[in-house]
């Protein structure tokens, strides 16, 4: 599923502008060390973390987009870094479980 389609179906709020990539899976994690060993390219990363370290880890793996749950929003330096490396950032008011359930109902796993 394209990111743009996902945005329409889940009401995600875009934080930056980026390429409309195809999501090929989902990974949920708040730890950079976990992301670099388990996430895969073009995955959607769901996290509560807004630290710059997550962008460094996500970029290494070529994560397509990051969704910050519970209305979390990263600082400008984090947004600038994500934009520079082509990672789309989104925010949702949902908690991790609620948003992950939405993805499952949409057939994204």
């Amino acid at each position, binding site marked *: 599923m394209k990111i743009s389609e996902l945005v329409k179906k889940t009401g995600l709020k875009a934080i930056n502008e980026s390429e409309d990539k195809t999501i090929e899976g989902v990974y949920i994690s708040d730890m950079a060390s976990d992301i670099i060993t388990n996430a895969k390219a073009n995955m959607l990363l769901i996290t509560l973390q807004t630290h710059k*370290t997550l962008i460094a880890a996500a970029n290494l793996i070529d994560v397509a987009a990051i969704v910050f749950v519970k209305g979390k929003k990263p600082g400008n330096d984090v947004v600038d870094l994500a934009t520079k490396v082509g990672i789309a950032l989104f925010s949702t008011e949902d908690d991790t479980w609620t948003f992950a359930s939405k993805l499952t109902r949409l057939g994204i796993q």
Partner: protein
Amino acid sequence: MTACNHKWEMIDILYGYLVVEGCPRCGGRTSFFSTEAVAPIDEYKEGDHFWIYLGSSQAVKFNLKCTKCNEIVHLDDLMGLMMSTCDRPQCEVANIAKSAGKGSSVYVALCADSTHSSGKCISEKGIDALNQYFNQNIKTPEKKILVVPCSKCCGIDVCEGIVIADVGLTDIY
């Protein structure tokens, strides 16, 4: 005999702590990986050094294995990876990043001995395997990861970058 076009996978994945120590006598830094439940904070003498605990973060260690030829590259010396954001003109890493161009990101492979007094850093074989591993999985066209050894940094205390380690992340929960 043709060389293997390696397809690497992570093996021997260990989660633990990256512990950083400093010697106030020489200003040197050293680090090691600990899989203990709590990061050790011992102070001890080692030759002319007196190592004191500076900090720790949750981190991961791994080796790489080729799924085609079964070659294993041990990354015992790899303490972590740092995404370079350095722009100091005298920094070799910054210059590599500048010449790498758009779509490229430079990551510094950090070894245990920041002073490189032993003359050792991450092995060339390890750097090659890390470059192949991270680039083999990229799907974004024109995107490239460049992994370089920390011996190319302008100085471990001044070279700017984002270390991939879980330190301070939970402060904002």
